[in-house]
């Protein structure tokens, strides 16, 4: 009985010393090895008198557990210390650069087209497209711009043949013609795309982007046109208040026609949309001319509606503070990186157009 206690006390004392892992293992063998002090004791259980046996066994088990736990603890303690010492040596300079990564960008014009589509999607427009190469009929004649009409001078046209029958479309309006010839009214479409005019300086590029809009139904009037554009401009520029001015103008394919200006002011050389008393022209629009409807076999006494054409590049310039139109098409890596958008930044209605 006291023998067990003696062993226990003696070894607890021993284990309190600063021991190496080998010394602990030696102690472990001394106690629990085949002929170890504790192991030997267990072998004697059978020879203990029945009255004392139960207590003896219980004391022995308790001593065993206590010593074993202490040994495990000591071993863990030493292991832990070792690992810590090892980790101490493994420190890196975490401020060194990460492994290289690349980041792509989407062109601001593409981003703007997605923004525009997203806004018009909300009010029921779907997207239509047409070819870049057009025939003279779709680009001009069907749009009530007959040959030898001075209105054609407003479009400096690139031609692909000497007879001037095939050309690069000067606006997205021929998509109106294609859409109306293909389907039956009502029509409610936008058509973004590339357009071309033989014009080149700081504010004109031989290629640029337009979005066409067309809404034809039995009862669509100029009030709807105003409402639609008012909605679009507010959403696009993401401002609460917008100053907008419709002023009479002339396009052969619309009647009455209007040009739309928005209010802006200059602050530190930057254009701020919606404030101020300066006007900036951003789009042309009007009620689709009855002659155009007749040309596409839509009955103008039954159907009427509006069309508009907006310069996409110009919108992008205004919204994102880009000064030079030519830079859009110059593919300067630094410019693309600066003005481009992260591909994950998909414009959508539910999270707002832009971040």
């Amino acid at each position: 009985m006291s023998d067990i206690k003696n062993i226990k006390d003696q070894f607890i004392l021993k284990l309190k010393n600063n021991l190496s892992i080998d010394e602990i293992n030696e102690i472990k063998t001394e106690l629990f090895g085949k002929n170890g002090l504790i192991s030997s004791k267990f072998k004697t259980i059978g020879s203990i008198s029945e009255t004392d046996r139960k207590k003896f066994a219980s004391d022995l088990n308790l001593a065993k557990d206590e010593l074993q736990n202490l040994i495990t603890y000591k071993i863990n303690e030493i292991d832990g210390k070792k690992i810590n010492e090892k980790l101490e040596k493994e420190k890196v300079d975490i401020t060194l650069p990460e492994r290289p990564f690349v980041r792509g960008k989407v062109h601001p014009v593409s981003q703007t087209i997605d923004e525009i589509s997203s806004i018009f999607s909300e009010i029921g427009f779907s997207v239509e497209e047409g070819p870049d190469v057009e025939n003279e009929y779709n680009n001009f004649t069907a749009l009530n711009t007959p040959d030898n009409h001075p209105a054609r001078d407003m479009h400096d046209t690139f031609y692909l043949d000497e007879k001037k029958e095939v050309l690069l479309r000067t606006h997205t309006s021929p998509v109106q013609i294609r859409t109306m010839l293909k389907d039956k009214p009502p029509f409610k479409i936008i058509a973004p795309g590339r357009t071309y005019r033989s014009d080149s300086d700081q504010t004109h590029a031989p290629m640029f982007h337009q979005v066409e809009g067309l809404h034809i139904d039995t009862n669509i009037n100029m009030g709807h046109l105003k409402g639609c554009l008012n909605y679009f401009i507010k959403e696009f520029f993401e401002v609460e208040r917008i100053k907008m001015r419709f002023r009479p103008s002339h396009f052969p394919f619309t009647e009455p026609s209007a040009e739309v200006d928005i209010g802006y002011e200059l602050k530190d050389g930057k254009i701020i949309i919606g404030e101020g008393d300066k006007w900036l022209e951003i789009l042309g629009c009007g009620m689709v001319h009855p002659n155009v409807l007749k040309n596409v076999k839509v009955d103008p006494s039954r159907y009427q509606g509006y069309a508009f054409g907006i310069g996409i590049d110009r919108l992008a310039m205004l919204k994102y503070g880009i000064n030079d139109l030519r830079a859009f098409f110059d593919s300067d890596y630094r410019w693309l990186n600066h003005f481009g958008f992260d591909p994950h930044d998909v414009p959508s209605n539910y999270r707002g157009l832009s971040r």
Partner: protein
Amino acid sequence: MKITYDWLKDHLKTSAKEDKLIDKLTDIGLEVESKENLSEGLDLFKVAKIIKTEKHPNADRLKVCDVDIGKKNIKKVVCGAANARKGLITVYAPPGAIIPKNKTKLVVAKIRDVVSHGMLCSESELNLSNESEGITELSSQKYAKKIGKSFFSKSSSNLIDLSITPNRPDCLGIRGIARDLSAAGFGSLKLLKDKKIKSNIKQTLKVKILKEKNQGCLSFGSCLITNVKNKESPQWLKEKLISIGQKPISAIVDITNYVMIDINRPLHAYDADKIDKGIIVRNSKLGEEFTALDNKNYKLEDGMCVISDNKGVLGLGGIIGGTRSGTELDTKNVLLESAYFDPISIRKTAKKLNIDTDAKFRFERGIDQLSIEDGLNKAALLIKEICGGEFSKIDIQKIETYKNKIIKFEPKIFEKITGFKISTKEMINILDKLGFKLKKEKKFFNLSVPSWRPDIVQEIDIVEELVRITGYEKIKIENPIKGRLKNTLNQPQKLFHFLQRAVASKGYLEAITWSFTDAKYNDHFKEAKKEIKIINPISSELGVLRNSIFSNLIMYVRKNLDRGIKDLSIFEIGPIFYGSQPGDQSTIVCGLSAGKKSRFSWIEKDRNIDVFDIKRDVIQTLVEAGYDSEKFYLDNESPSYYHPGKSGRIFLNKGKDKVVAYFGEIHPNIIKKLDIKTESLVGFEILMDNLKLPKKPLKDQKTKYLVSDFQKSERDFAFIVDKKIKVQELVKVISSIDKNLISNIKVFDVYEGDNIPDNQKSIAISVTIQSLEKTLTDNDLEKINNLIIQTVENKTGAKIRS
């Protein structure tokens, strides 16, 4: 169209401020482009007298003049004019003044070591005339007492530049603008005092319009004025023309210009003595020539409308006159022409000969056919008043009589189009002021369109007039209703946007380049495609439509490399063209990647970008877009602009489909020819139109979810095969042995060289074997193992490596 408020007031009774005018003009569709104060700074120009001249010490042709500029102020001015002399009264511009002609600002300057305080001005420099020989000479009688006073009389009127749309020829005259303003309630239109020529003299120069096919002249009015004395215009007329930025020339020319601008009635004045017998208006014949007033010689084609006499062409009707019959200061007898020319005829001729004049600009938009007499009356009376002489009766020849256009207009259509109402009374008022003659019927108006409005032909044009004059601000906003009947994007459009962002997410910057390109670049990439030329390119470097996006993209890669950007990836998604008809185009996603990976990385070794980098970008993009890479089939028949050994093309399925992509290193010859300096250049093209669109929407595309939790086994094999055998075949062979058991086939080593016979290579492959139904026994595994070896050996001639 340039106007001043002062001139407008000749026709408009109003007391409103100029600011209000500017707003109103824009509101009714006569857009104000700019407003400029022409007289600003002009008060600096003084009447001055030269009191002494000396020869310049260092220059033979220069003089140093002492100039009295008033208030006992004498300035030393260096002057080169031959006529600079003692006692001459002229115009002096001090330092700080801006010369009207060239807009340069004067400073105190040293001219050959002599300081000159200002300048003595020629008439040309002051925009008074074209006279640039010598300095302005002012009559001492008139100006002797004005030394030191401002030379220009003070005008407060600004120059207003209007952008007149091509449908409004009537507003190319001041009176037309005044009429529009009065209709909109801005002042009231003054009645023209009906001054008519009273004469008993016959117009003796015979005029004849030949009745030919496509005769461009429909009527020709004329008036002969004899014994005139052409001279400098009087001050009021000069000032009027100068106020809108025109240069006075001589009284007769100035009068015709004045009438044209005032009432939009182009006129032409001939020196009647230079016309041989009479005037014949006819079609030109091929090869006829004449020298026009712009001093150019024009060779005519058949069928252009010319004014001629017995000797030949005098001028192009309604476009430009000729030098042979032009008026000069010594002209004694003047024939005034006031005619109507067909807009289309004018336009065709002017376009062919590339002439642009004020008259042409007006005639091609349509001149008031009934203004012939008004123009002659107004001009002839002015000529007589200023130049003296006697005028004849007006002679008018015509081959067609003008008919009034009548339009039936239903007032209710106004609200249907505009969405708001105005009263019939208001409508009548507006139309009346615009010059319509109106007859009210029960449900509609019968409108007679004024002769100066060729643009108005149908009901909708009347709606436009009414809403324009009423004001667009009256249109009520109808807010759009949110909702959608149809998908915004169709499937190809969705794919377009997906590919665009998928490629960008691989590290590529999106570029947008012209659809046209330099034929020199295009030649490298056009393959068998037809070259599509633009007839009138902006420059020869942009002369053809691109047959490949590479033509542009590679040029911009080179530019960026030249900017010192060493590693770059750019792409474009857009059209390429294979024919010159609408629709002969397809959509391509095209990318280029140049340089190295991990350049200047402390942690990774740098390496050149290679064909397997670009292959990953393409395959990953296609997989992300929803295509099954296990079905892809590749071969190396790529276009010639790729490296023949390090490029390939991709099909979605073996055998059945069109090529969906090309990728590879760009051919070293092209890199060399285009002088592109980079370690490596790889590119790809995804042919979007060849990508089959899924028949089912994505929600229905997901297959049943099936995974196995039974034990899996990974086995490695090394085969020795002929070099010609492609890994793709080996993998296909293995995967088709048992789709239920074999998955995840990975190539983890390819080796040629020592220990491998020539013409052969070793390919090491890891295969995962797993059943959906049970744990495979050693026996099962051994069986499938052997089957793999046997099948590969049989089908490819490979040998398992022992």
